[in-house]
């Protein structure tokens, strides 16, 4: 497959949310997905933070990749460089949010450091490179993936609220039933995958 079919930014946007959801199609960013989804309010905060960080870092990493790494012919440094830039962006975002809005800092602040090590963030930057996205496509793909992640964690935490009260076998309580739930969710999402292809 090549990248040609998805040139339409809107198609890419919806594809990254639904048909190629970073969590449910690629299974990236699972650790915080499973642990934080216990609580709906925290899930919302983390989802928001992931969306912001994904959008900004994908854009920044596109610039670094195309204006520094490729001209110098050192693409193999992408892993370390992308991680450094993600860490730096998270640091700066934390400071700016702290200054600009106390309320937003309260809801996002504690999740931001957690995001530095979220593999979905690095994953999106790497997909952006593999699929040769343009700058606009990268930003849209980053934003869409973030929204997709946000949507998925909200859905899961809503389902977990139900399963908490459900008569789950003792051995499956907690993470066990959560992983099974994620499997069902993934199957449902993969049902869309034939509609649009981003890969």
């Amino acid at each position, binding site marked *: 497959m090549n990248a040609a079919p998805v040139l339409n930014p809107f198609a890419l946007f919806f594809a990254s949310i639904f048909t190629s959801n970073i969590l449910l199609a690629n299974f990236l960013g699972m650790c915080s997905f499973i642990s934080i989804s216990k609580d709906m309010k925290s899930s919302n905060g983390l989802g928001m933070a992931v969306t912001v960080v994904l959008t900004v870092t994908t854009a920044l990493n596109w610039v670094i990749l195309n204006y520094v790494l490729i001209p110098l012919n050192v693409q193999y*440094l992408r892993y370390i*460089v992308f991680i*450094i830039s993600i860490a*730096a962006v998270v640091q*700066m975002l934390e*400071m700016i949010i702290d200054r600009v809005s*106390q309320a937003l800092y309260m809801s996002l602040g*504690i999740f931001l450091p957690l995001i530095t090590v979220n593999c979905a963030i690095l994953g999106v930057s790497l997909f952006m490179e593999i699929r040769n996205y343009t700058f606009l496509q990268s930003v849209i793909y980053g934003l869409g993936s973030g929204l997709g992640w946000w949507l998925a964690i909200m859905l899961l935490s809503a389902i977990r609220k139900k399963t908490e009260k459900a008569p789950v076998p003792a051995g499956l309580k907690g993470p066990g039933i959560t992983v099974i739930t994620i499997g069902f969710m993934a199957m449902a999402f993969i049902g869309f995958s034939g509609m649009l292809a981003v890969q």
Partner: protein
Amino acid sequence: MTFDMLFFVAPAAIGGISAGLAALISITDKIVNNYGDITIDINNGKKELVVKGGQPMLFGLAGEGIFVPSACGGRGSCGACKVKVKSDVGPVMPTEVPYLTKEELADDIRLSCQIKLKQDVDIEIPEELFNVQEFQATIERIRDVTHDIKEVYCKLPEGMEITFTSGQYGQFEVPPYDKVKEKTMRAYSMSSPPSDKNHLEFLIRLVPGGIVTSYVHQYLQEGQKVRLVGPFGDFFVRDTDAQMICVAGGSGMAPFKSIFQDMLDRGTFDDRDIWYFFGARTKKDVYYLDWLYKLDEEHERFHFVPALSEPQPEDNWDGPTGLITEVLDSYLKNTISQETPKEGYLCGSPGMLDACIKVMGDNDMETEKIYFDKFA
């Protein structure tokens, strides 16, 4: 590109990108974290401090000589640095919630180490904190009083004096050592009397794994300089005629040593009945016996009751035995006058204190007249 160049380009690229991002962070920090000068108004204009914004309130206050008690040094893990914040400084942080009760939350009490100074604030703190000072004291003498308790006698810097009420405590800071990477402070009751204005004495018991106690027992040397901050605390003798029922264990001796010496100094030691119960396991855990027995002998109204819970055969112990709670209970029921009102003064581990408070309550002592200093 040749191999040599590649060898050079990769580190340069990473270095360059890192440097660029680091510069960006520094610039953002300079712009975003510059809050200018902030005015802190304390107790409705009693004091006004102008400090640099952007730092935690605890440090801003300490920089101007107001030492809000803090055992963890501003890491938000002790919950001691509570202040009442009257102006709006944003919602309570998740890091503060575990340390605040419902009443405190309703009363705008916050942890000063978690509040970043961003705009002018109005706060309220206990007036006695104005009296809190910081000393670079010199260790004058370290003495073993039991196998695990050291008496540490510190000399305050030349020309500096401390004014405190016996029963209060001070913060003792030790430098980083071994695996401990930060300076650490812990609170200890003063065991010296207030009349000794140039010295402070502490009784420090070795707590296995304790950062400060391990340092004091293994590394602290005579002649060394340590930072002390104090005085703090509201554990002191109430000025009444009631009988004092004092109970201590281990290094809980400290405030009572100071209190009794202070009463002797001021000539009030014989004005009321004092019962001093001291609980220990074996004879090697009790100390200052000579001094206390002598006080007991010379002062009719002072009664010293040491009790051993596990006396060893070689101890030749003929005093009371059993848990301090049992001894206290029996004395309250059989020996101590029922007519005169009583006040309780307790210092020791939380377990011992809670048990003693229960015994006192069961013997009809009023809970609000039981004062205590709990080891945290």
